[in-house]
């Protein structure tokens, strides 16, 4: 077996064990209802994380995603309020805008050789700033199409709801898997993660690929923004603060190397579900104060990463890694 898959396998194993432990303590957690909730509640996060995974695989980072989600919600809500356009048209417009926004960041990163951390940090300020400029109020979305989307779900046995946005998230992950692992573009992304200079010598069109990567992430953030607006039925410039960090954490838990070049899109799904499971567990417990909630999230994150490291270490130990 390729040692490269160890982090992924470790992630899956730990998730399953954790799910089993949680279910043992609160049997309701093992129900289609909670499973459905996990998908629905984390749909926007999952979609963002797909874009983030690709960016991280290329050795970059995208801090703008949370702000772009907020911007998207506000954009949709304001457009719906002020123009008579159909939501689908607005979605298309929005995706064009966020994709271009991502592409512009990618262009800056490559052309000016600026670190992604900083360019996307500026992007983060900018996107939220523009959202503020559109409106500082939270704007409700009242449109039949939206109600339709919100109400479209499949009732699983056990009253669990498999919602539209949950399914959309799964489909996005699938698409992400194909893009990352089954296309030449994906191969170039991994190549960039292995080292820009080397990738260039191997014949990767670095500039084009970088632009495409951030455009992809921009598109995914826009899509996540749409999902978020369906989820909350409104647009709010303060929404999704800090989502970028949650998404990064999910990607890393999913076994993707933050330095780039190694990881699996599927792991990201597991990472997202793990974050969701931690949340669910804390809600079910219901005794933690605000501050203990933060501490416990941190501790669970740490134990997860340590467990994963430990498992991977055990399985590769005999080679006696060099210092």
């Amino acid at each position, binding site marked *: 077996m390729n040692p490269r898959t160890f982090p992924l396998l470790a992630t899956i194993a730990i998730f399953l064990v954790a799910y089993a432990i949680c279910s043992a303590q609160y049997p309701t957690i093992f129900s289609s209802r909670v499973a459905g909730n996990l998908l629905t509640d984390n749909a926007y996060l999952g979609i963002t994380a797909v874009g983030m995974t690709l960016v991280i695989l290329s050795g970059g980072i995208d801090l703008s995603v949370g702000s772009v989600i907020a911007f998207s919600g506000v954009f949709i809500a304001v457009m719906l309020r002020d123009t008579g356009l159909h939501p689908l048209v607005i979605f298309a417009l929005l995706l064009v805008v966020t994709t271009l926004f991502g592409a512009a960041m990618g262009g800056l990163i490559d052309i000016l050789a600026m670190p992604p951390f900083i360019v996307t940090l500026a992007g983060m300020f900018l996107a939220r700033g523009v959202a503020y400029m559109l409106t500082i109020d939270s704007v409700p979305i009242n449109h039949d199409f939206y109600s339709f989307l*919100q109400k479209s779900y499949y009732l699983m046995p056990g009253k669990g709801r498999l919602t539209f946005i949950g399914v959309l998230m799964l489909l996005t992950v699938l698409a992400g898997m194909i893009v990352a692992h089954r296309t030449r573009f994906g191969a170039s992304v991994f190549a960039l993660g292995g080292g820009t200079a080397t990738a260039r010598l191997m014949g990767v069109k670095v500039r084009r690929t970088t632009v495409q990567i951030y455009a992809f992430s921009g598109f995914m953030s826009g899509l996540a923004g749409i999902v978020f607006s369906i989820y909350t039925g409104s647009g709010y410039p303060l929404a999704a603060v800090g989502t970028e960090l949650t998404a990064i954490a999910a990607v890393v838990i999913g076994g993707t190397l933050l330095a780039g070049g190694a990881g699996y899109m599927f792991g990201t799904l597991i990472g997202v579900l793990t974050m969701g499971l931690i949340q669910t567990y804390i809600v079910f417990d219901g005794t933690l104060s605000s501050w203990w909630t933060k501490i416990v999230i941190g501790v669970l994150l740490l134990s997860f990463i340590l467990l994963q490291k430990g498992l991977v270490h055990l399985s590769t130990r005999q080679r006696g890694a060099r210092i």
Partner: protein
Amino acid sequence: QTVGFSQIGSESGWRAAETTLTKQQAEERGIDLKFSDAQQKQENQIAAMRNFIAQGVDAILIAPVVATGWDSILAEAKEAEIPVVLLDRKVDSSDDMYLTAVGSDLVHEGEVAGKWLVDTVGDKDCRVVELQGTTGSSPAIDRKTGFEKGIAGHDNIEIVRSQTGDFTRSVGKEVMESFLQAENGGENICALYAHNDDMAVGAIQAIKEAGLLPGKDILVVSIDGVPDIFKAMSEGEANATVELTPNMAGPAFDALAAYWKDGTMPPKFIQTDSALYTMQDDPAGQYEARKDLGY
């Protein structure tokens, strides 16, 4: 009975006090309170409500972080026949989606503060600086609107500078410093209106450091009624505050108890007082009364 409580977070002393009081009230009534902290995120609140529903609690209390976007989750709760009580902030969903809302009228609070200023300065010209709450948050928007409503028609009072102080003491202080700089060392400022007490406390320090006397050279009026502002008032450094009581849970539990007992429907909005406190209202005593409430 089990009640799930989805709190926004613990972003201010006031909110911490609300949490403490809610837990206290639940304990007094023998209610099993499931507490969930949303860390200022609506998505976390929605997820928490979903999980409360999955758990089959008997009622849900929620302090919504934002007014919009609750329709579908409220519908889900309704479907599961779980009564929902909104605490301290309102939502824009139709009012048959929830049992009742307990809270204060944020616009009214701002209006009370504005009216106080109108009464205090009389006909004198007064240039006011305003410390807003976090940009985009509903208290910031409503308290601004309310204050403007309060001073409407009094052309001698004018808001000359208005910036966000993020509801925090340190930003409140920083922004106040720049206001002082910009307004001729503070000479041109007659009054400060802060959207919450924390910012006012920070601003008071800035005023003192600039060599002016808060409460005299610059009038200070703010909202919330946290202990520290009463302390400042007792020292003559602040002039007025509009109280927002952190005990929202008490009325909420009362309404729930009645509902559980015989299905009594409470009124859709249970408004708490927005009492105005000034230097005349024994601030030192108010401070003592509040300082252990977990603010």
